[in-house]
């Protein structure tokens, strides 16, 4: 059983990304949407939270915020809404860290 962890807030705003990344079990996947995509920027301190996690970010939310994909931490996978749906399907349940 694997879980898809959904985080939508910037790690510089609150602790949700920290929470999700530290509680994730092996095999779980983290998807960053909305303001959480700032957490995937390599140059930002928060990207260290992603180490050891399988991470995807929503491309449209990156683009909206002017974040080019070359700025992302290594190993972060960019998906669109179709990819978001695929992640929901591929994991047994979704945990929205609100």
């Amino acid at each position, binding site marked *: 059983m694997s879980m898809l962890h*959904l985080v*939508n*807030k910037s790690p510089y705003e609150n602790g949700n990304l920290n929470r999700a990344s530290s509680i994730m079990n092996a095999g779980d996947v983290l998807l960053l*949407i*909305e*303001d959480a995509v700032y957490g995937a920027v390599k140059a930002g301190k928060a990207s260290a939270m992603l180490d050891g996690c399988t991470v995807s970010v929503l491309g*449209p939310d990156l683009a909206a915020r002017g974040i080019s994909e070359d700025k992302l931490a290594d190993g972060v996978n960019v998906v*669109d*809404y*179709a990819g*978001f*749906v*695929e992640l*929901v*399907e591929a994991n047994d*349940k*979704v945990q*929205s860290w*609100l």
Partner: protein
Amino acid sequence: MKLTIQVNEGPYQHQSSDSAYFFAKAALEKGHEIFRVFFYHDGVNNGTRLTTPPQDDRNIVARWSELAQAHDLDMVLCVAAAQRRGIVDDGEAERNGKDATNIAPGFRISGLGQLVEGAIQSDRLVVFGD
């Protein structure tokens, strides 16, 4: 995959309703079934007929109404949350002595049991909120 989607925030204030909408749309395009979209907390404000967004911006309420019509979606506003926040249909107006209704097309008002049922009947519950 059968999905229930929960939207916890109102239109414009948070991106939640937008994210939920695009997720729902993508799921339908991939041939998945949306069992229900359940609007809770301030999310019930997505069901007001009375918004007038600027011409050059998206019309969140109309967008949901159109999606519901195109795909025969069941979009439910939680009755307790709707009562608190003033989203009213004919039944609620009569029951609670209101002089107007404001519910948008494609939405219906019903109980929290609809969320629980959605969670039981669906393969996935996806929550969008703050």
